[in-house]
C-alpha cells in the first residue's frame, strides 16, 4: 500500500522505505494518517472530554449534596446536566470506542492500516472543533444548551437560548465525524481481512464494531435531520415542532429516539466485543457460544430500530402503540440474556486469574446485568409511568453506561496497553484503580434507584427533604469515583514511563492476530498478510 501512495511524491521527510516511522513533533499528530496515531488521538481526546464531563457531573452532585440551592442557580444547573450528558455520550464514550477500533481493527483483521487513512485523520480532527464550539456556548450571552441532552422541542427551539444555533452546528460536525469513522471501519473490515478470515471467523470486537458502524450510518443522518428541522423552526419560520403553527412537538421525540435508541446500543455493542475478548483470555478457555454471540448482537441491533417509543410511554399514545413498544422492548432481554449466559459459561470451569482487565470485565457483566434488569422493569409500560423521568431512570442508564460502556473501555485500555506501549502497567495500581472505581460507582448510582422509586424527578437542582440521605450518599460516591479516574491517568502515565517490557503475547491466554505482533506493535501493523490459524481465531 504505502509504496503505491508515496510513489512519485516528493515527500522527503516521509521516507520511501518500507519500515518508515512517524514524523516528529506536532506535525505527526496533525497530519497523521496512521491508525495507531489516530487511535491514540481519539483515546486521549475522549479522556479529556471525560474529565470535562466529569467536572460537570461533580458540579451537579455538589449542588445536590443537600436540599436547597447552595452553589449554582437553576439556570446553570440545567446547562450542566445538558452538557454533561452531551459530552459524555458524544465526546467521551463514542470517540473512545472509535479510538479502540482504530487501534484494534487493522491488527485484529491482519491489515496494515485502516482502509481510508486520510478520511480517518479528518474524522478525528473535526471533533476538537465540534466540542470547542459546544463548550464555548457556556460562555455566550444567555448561556449554553439548557434543555437536556435529549433537547426536546419546543424547549430547545422556541424557548432555547441563542447559543442553540452553535449547538446545532456542533451536532452536525459530530455526526459527520461519526459517519466518516463508520465508513472507514466498515471498509476496513469488509475489504482488508487477511486471507482465510471469513466473516464467521472474525473476532467479536470486529463483529460488534461492524454492526455498530452500520447502526451509526443508519441513525446519525436522522439526528442531523432533527437538528436541521430545529434550525429551520428557529431561524426560517417553519413549524415542524411548533404546535401553534400546526407542527407537532411529539414528532420531535419520535425522530430523536429513532436515533436515540440505536445510539444507546452504539455505546454498548463494542463493549460486548471487548468483554468477549477479555473473559476468555483470563479464563484460559475459548469463548462459549461464538455463533450465538454474533446472532445475539445482530438481533439486538435489529430490535434497536423498533423499540424507540419506550422512552415516550407518558407522551400519550394509543393503547396498541404502547403494547407494541412494550413487547418489542421486552424481547431485547432475550439476546442480552444470551450474552450474559455465554460469558458466565465461558468463565465456568476455566482456569481464571484476576488481573485488572478481568476485574473490570467481571464487574461489567454483573453491573451491566443490573442495568439490564432495571431496563426490563422500565419496559413494562404501566410501571414505567411511575419510573419515567425519575432517578430510577438515571440509575438505570448510568448502570449500563458507566460500569457498562465505560468499564469496558477501561478494561480494554488495560488489556491492550502492553500491545500499544510495549510496557506492562503496574498491576497493584491497576487493581487499586479497579476497587476505587467499583466502590465509587456503586455508591453513586445504587442509591439513585431508591430515590427514583421514592419519586425524585430527574434534572432538578433542588429536591424535597425525603430524598436528602440518598443524595448525600450519591454525591460522596461521585467524588470517590471522579478522583479514582484521575488515579487512572496516573496509572497509565506511570505504565508508559516506567512499566516493565511486555511480551508479544502479553497475556498467556490471549488469542487473536494482534498478539502475534511484537509489543509495541510496529507502526504499520501487518505489511504482509498474516496466516490465519484456528489457534488464533474462532474456528
Amino acid at each position, binding site marked *: 500500500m504505502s509504496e503505491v501512495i508515496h510513489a512519485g511524491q516528493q515527500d522527503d521527510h516521509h521516507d520511501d522505505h518500507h519500515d518508515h516511522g512517524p514524523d516528529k513533533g506536532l506535525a505527526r499528530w496533525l497530519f497523521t494518517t496512521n491508525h495507531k496515531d489516530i487511535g491514540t488521538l481519539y483515546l486521549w481526546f475522549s479522556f479529556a472530554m471525560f474529565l470535562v464531563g466529569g467536572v460537570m457531573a461533580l458540579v451537579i452532585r455538589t449542588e445536590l449534596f443537600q436540599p436547597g440551592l447552595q452553589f449554582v442557580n437553576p439556570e446553570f444547573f440545567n446547562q450542566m446536566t445538558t452538557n454533561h450528558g452531551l459530552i459524555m455520550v458524544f465526546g467521551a464514550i463514542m470517540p473512545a470506542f472509535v479510538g479502540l477500533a482504530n487501534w484494534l481493527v487493522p491488527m485484529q483483521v491482519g491489515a496494515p492500516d485502516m482502509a481510508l487513512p486520510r478520511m480517518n485523520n479528518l474524522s478525528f480532527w473535526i471533533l476538537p472543533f465540534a466540542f470547542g464550539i459546544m463548550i464555548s456556548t457556556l460562555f455566550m450571552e444567555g448561556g449554553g444548551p439548557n434543555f437536556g441532552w435529549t433537547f*426536546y422541542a419546543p424547549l430547545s427551539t422556541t424557548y432555547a437560548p441563542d447559543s442553540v444555533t452553535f449547538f446545532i452546528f456542533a451536532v452536525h460536525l459530530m455526526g459527520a465525524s461519526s459517519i466518516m469513522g463508520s465508513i472507514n471501519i466498515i471498509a476496513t473490515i469488509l475489504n482488508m481481512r487477511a486471507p482465510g478470515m471469513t466473516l464467521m471467523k472474525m473476532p467479536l470486537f470486529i463483529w460488534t464494531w461492524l454492526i455498530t458502524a452500520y447502526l451509526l450510518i443508519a441513525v446519525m443522518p436522522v439526528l442531523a435531520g432533527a437538528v436541521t428541522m430545529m434550525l429551520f423552526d428557529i431561524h426560517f419560520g417553519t413549524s415542524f415542532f411548533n404546535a401553534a403553527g400546526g407542527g407537532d412537538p411529539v414528532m420531535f421525540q419520535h425522530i430523536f429516539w429513532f436515533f436515540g435508541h440505536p445510539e444507546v446500543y452504539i455505546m454498548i455493542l463494542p463493549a460486548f466485543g471487548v468483554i468477549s475478548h477479555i473473559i476468555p483470555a483470563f479464563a484460559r478457555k475459548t469463548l462459549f457460544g461464538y455463533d450465538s454471540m454474533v446472532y445475539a448482537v445482530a438481533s439486538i441491533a435489529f430490535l434497536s430500530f423498533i423499540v424507540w417509543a419506550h422512552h415516550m410511554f407518558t*407522551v400519550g399514545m394509543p393503547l396498541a402503540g404502547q403494547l407494541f413498544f412494550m413487547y418489542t422492548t421486552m424481547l431485547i432481554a432475550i439476546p442480552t440474556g444470551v450474552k450474559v449466559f455465554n460469558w458466565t459459561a465461558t468463565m465456568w470451569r476455566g482456569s481464571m*486469574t484476576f488481573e485488572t482487565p478481568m476485574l473490570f470485565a467481571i464487574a461489567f457483566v454483573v453491573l451491566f446485568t443490573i442495568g439490564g434488569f432495571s431496563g426490563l422493569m422500565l419496559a413494562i409500560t404501566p410501571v414505567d409511568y411511575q419510573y419515567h423521568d425519575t432517578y430510577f431512570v438515571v440509575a438505570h442508564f448510568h448502570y449500563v453506561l458507566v460500569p457498562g460502556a465505560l468499564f469496558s473501555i477501561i478494561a480494554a485500555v488495560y488489556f491492550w496497553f502492553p500491545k500499544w506501549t510495549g510496557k506492562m502497567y503496574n498491576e497493584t495500581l491497576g487493581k487499586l484503580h479497579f476497587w476505587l472505581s467499583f466502590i465509587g460507582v456503586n455508591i453513586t448510582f445504587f442509591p439513585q434507584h431508591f430515590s427514583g422509586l421514592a419519586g425524585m424527578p430527574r434534572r432538578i437542582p433542588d429536591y424535597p427533604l425525603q430524598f436528602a440521605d440518598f443524595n448525600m450518599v450519591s454525591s460522596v460516591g461521585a467524588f470517590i469515583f471522579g478522583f479514582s479516574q484521575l488515579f487512572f491517568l496516573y496509572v497509565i502515565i506511570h505504565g508508559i514511563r516506567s512499566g516493565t517490557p511486555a511480551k508479544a503475547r502479553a497475556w498467556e491466554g490471549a488469542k487473536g492476530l494482534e498478539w502475534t505482533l511484537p509489543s509495541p506493535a510496529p507502526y504499520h501493523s501487518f505489511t504482509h498478510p498474516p496466516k490465519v490459524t484456528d489457534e488464533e481465531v474462532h474456528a
Partner: protein
Amino acid sequence: MKQRISLAGGLLSLLMAGVATADELNLRPGVTDISQQVYDLHMIILVICVFIGIAVFGVMFWSVIHHRRSAGYEAAKFHESTKLELAWTIVPTLILIGMAIPATQVLVAMYDTGGEDMTVEVRGYQWKWQYKYLDDDYNNTFSFFSNMATTQDEIQNRSAKGENYLLEVDNPLRIPSNRKVRFLVTSEDVIHAWWVPDFGIKRDAVPGMLNELWTVVEEPGIYRGQCTELCGKDHGFMPVVVEVMEEADFDAWYAEEVANESVRQEALSKTFTHEELMEQGEEVYGTFCASCHQPNGQGLPPVFPSLVGSPYIVGPRDDHIKMVIEGVPGTAMQAFGRQLDAAQLAAVVHYERHSWGNDSDDITQPRDVIELSGE
C-alpha cells in the same frame, strides 16, 4: 479474597446505612386501585429480576471462587452446547410472556376511560399548573393557578425548610373522593409532565395536544407530586398537589367557587382606587412576575430585563399593557392575557408603574385593559 469480601462488606453496610435512614425505599403502593395494581406488577417483576440475578451471579461467583488457576484448576475445553443455548433462550422467553400478561392487563385497565363524573383540564405553564373545571359541555366554569408556595428564603437556605418543602402550593387541585375524575392534560408553552405518584398516573403536558387521564380516589387527603419533564429554569419548582375532599365538602366548595367566579366577572367593570390597585398588583406581581423580574423589579439581566426605568414603563401606558397581554413571542415573556383576567392585569401594570422608583402619573383600570385586548 478476604480483602475483597471485607471491601464488599464495607460497601454493603454503607448502602444499608443510607437505606436505613430513609423513609421510603420502594415504590409507594398509592391509594387507588390502579396504583395498587401497578405496585403489585412492580413487585412481581422486581422479585423475578432479583431471583434471576441471584441465580446468574451465584453461578458466576461459584466459578470465580472455584475455577481459578491459583486453586490449581485446569481449564475445560468445551465452548458450545446447543441444549444449553436453547434452554437459556426458551426459558427467558417464557418468563417474559409471564410478565407481559399481567402488564397488558394493567395497561388495559388504565386505558378504561369514559364514564367520568367530572372533567378537569390540567394546563402546564412555565412554571405553574392551571386547573380548569369543565362543565358537561366542556365549558370553563372556573379556573385557577397553582403556584409553588415554598419561599425563596427556604430555597436559598435563609430560613428553615418546612415539612413539605418544594411540595406545597398556594391553591391545590381539589377533587371529590369516590368519583371518577377525568383529566385533560395539556400545556401552554413547553412540555411538562403531571404526576401524582399515589394515584399511579403520570402524563406529559404537550402544547397543542390533549392527553387523557383518569382516577378514582377513595381516601380523602392531600397527595403530592412534581413536574417530571424538564421544562426550563424552574422545572424543579412546580409541584403538583391534589386535595381529595369528602364528596359533600367538595360540592360545597365547588358551589362557592362558582359564586366567586361571578364576583370576579363583576370586578371587571369596577373602578378601583390607587391603593386597591397597588395591593392587588403586588400580589399578582409576586405570584406571576417576580420569579423572572425579581421582587425588586431589577430582573436578572440580560435574560430577564429590569423593569426599573424600562422603556415600557417610562413610555406610553398602552404599550405596556399590550406587551403584558401579548408577551414577547420566542422569549420567556409569556402572553399573560391568557392567564390573568383584566382586573389582575390592570393591577399588575399599575403596580409596576408605581413601584421601585417608577413613578407614572396614570392609573390603570380593568376597562383600559379590556379595551386593548379587543375582546
